[in-house]
């Protein structure tokens, strides 16, 4: 599904190298987790994959289903099935949440040569998905993320994901700022989307999200590289001993 090879990325405006040769393959239907200390480059990886400006890829490649992602516009990547749940969802005053969702869904459908969804079907779809995430109708009427609490913003990201039905989902610290109940809602939302054709890359700082969304593979990222890869037990090890031990061991 997603294949990242030797990815090197620096900032556009400064001579600061952030990703220093990331290699990662996520197979169809699998859930991979990336853990790592703050500043290790996790968010940068998610932004570069989804096409945010401000970064320069100096080496390497990233493909989705064999198609090179890095030359595509962000909207093309989205239409091809890539989705990023933002660590910090963006507030857009003046753009209604419903308008935003419908515009996005129809743009993706159009890009794929499909018909627009009818107003009635769209409403039904949103109602159903919003209900599962306990997002009330009032939130849908408000401007995108404006006045939403931290937890509401994260649930709104998952709602977008549920409606757009991407095949490669990247979740960047979706668990941060969530209380136990919200964490459960979000995890249930993600789990409901798991299927053989859909893959996940779950970026998190803490083991607790992985109690709810069981990963197939866990990677540890440090200083712009994947330094260790293992099964779910790796996350438990981080939880118990912190990153320091792991990273020290690697350095040896």
């Amino acid at each position: 599904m997603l294949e990242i090879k030797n990815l090197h990325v620096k900032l556009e405006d400064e001579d600061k190298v952030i990703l220093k040769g990331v290699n990662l393959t996520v197979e169809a239907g699998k859930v991979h987790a990336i853990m790592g200390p703050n500043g290790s480059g996790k968010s940068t990886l998610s932004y570069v994959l989804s096409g945010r400006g401000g970064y320069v890829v100096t080496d390497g490649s990233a493909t989705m289903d064999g198609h090179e992602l890095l030359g595509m516009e962000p909207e093309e990547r989205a239409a091809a099935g890539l989705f990023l749940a933002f660590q910090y969802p963006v507030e857009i005053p003046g753009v209604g949440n419903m308008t935003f969702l419908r515009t996005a869904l129809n743009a993706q459908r159009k890009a794929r040569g499909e018909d627009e969804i009818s107003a009635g079907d769209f409403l039904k779809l949103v109602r159903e998905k919003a209900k599962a995430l306990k997002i009330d109708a009032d939130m849908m009427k408000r401007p995108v993320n404006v006045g939403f609490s931290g937890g509401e913003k994260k649930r709104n990201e998952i709602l977008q994901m549920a409606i757009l039905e991407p095949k490669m989902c990247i979740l960047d610290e979706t668990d941060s700022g969530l209380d136990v109940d919200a964490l459960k809602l979000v995890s249930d939302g993600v789990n409901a989307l798991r299927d053989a054709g859909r893959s996940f890359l779950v970026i998190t700082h803490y083991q607790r999200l992985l109690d709810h969304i069981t990963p197939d593979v866990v990677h540890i990222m440090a200083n712009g590289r994947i330094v260790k890869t293992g099964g779910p037990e790796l996350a438990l090890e981080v939880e118990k001993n912190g990153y320091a031990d792991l990273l020290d061991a690697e350095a040896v």
Partner: protein
Amino acid sequence: MAEAKPKDDRTAARLAGLSFANEGWQAPARGDALARLTAMGVPGRRDEYWRYTDPASFNAPEAMAASTAGDGDDRPVFEGIDRLKLVFVDGVFDAAASDPLALDHVEISLLGAAQSDIHWARDLYGVLEARGQVPVKRPFAALGTAFATEGVLLRVTGAVPKPVALIYIHRAETSDAILHHCIRVEPGAEVTILESGPAAARLTKVMEVDVAEGGRFHHIRAQGPDHERRACTHIFARVAGKGLFKSFTLTANGVMTRNEAVIELVGDDAVAHVAGAAVGDGRFHHDDTVFVTHQGQACESRQVFKKVLKNGATGVFQGKILVKPGAQKTDGYQISQSLLLDDDSVFLAKPELEIYADDVKCSHGSTSGAIDETALFYLRSRGVPLKAAQSLLVLAFLAEAIQEIENEEIAEDIQQLLEAWLARHEH
């Protein structure tokens, strides 16, 4: 920069090209206005409220030729809205193109035709304009009172069932129109006035609006879409207790537009909202000069002005809230913002507050900025193509001004016009 000619010479040159028709019931008001104009003279760049806008083309004895071409595929404004149509071609009333002057709860006459004395109009014509000359001079408004021979006189006596639409058609390349409208909204009456179209190569206009106790006045105007037209317009409003005055203007294109609004809240619990959305691409200079005076107690005023500028377009906002002594519990709000779509465009703002009462709530803000790249990326990451995402953000920027239009059907029409303009001017 030295002024090209002394003020007196410029004023004399401007007046030389005009014919002064001093007859009928307006004669005294016209004479007074001419005296006011001669005394203050036409403006120069050194005048405090003309620093950002060059008055040269308004001062010129003749209108500069202006092509009547719009953007090509733009459709008429307010087309689908049921309204009483009053059509002016190059500033001259066109009876054949207009609806009969009959509508429930409103007396309609024409400035040119009303030879007999219309008492209410005599008490209004030039009166609010004259009041509005202090403390800021408005020479072109005095010119409008002195020289206009065309315009409508509306006396609103109840809830008018549909909007009265003033439709301005620009046909001759060098037409120079002067219009003066008077509207009196009697106690508890309500009317919506629509204005649309470019009027002439050059338009000088005055609209005086007198809202009596509990009266409600709604004004929605669409200026454009010709590119080369020039317009200097003025609205003078006086709002009595519990009265409502709401005015919204959409301006699309136009090489030189100055819209002045002078509003006095004279009674208690009165409301005045004045808003504008202006979109300009290239040779575009748009100036909103607004003065709101709070005299009554517990009045609310809002000024909401948004400008989208690209390819070297210029936007100007000069807005003032004056709270007079005794105008306690005033609620005043003013926001002026520009969205600069490139580095060549400029926004010049002069927000002012002058407050002589202690128990008031007044806020003002002015910002100028580019499209929010983070928001743009967020939209694109969800599959919205770049241009559509930019348009969404531009419309979002303008939304606060559009929301000032109460009538949903009219708001939707304005929204569609803006969307079409943005589609034609995608960057």
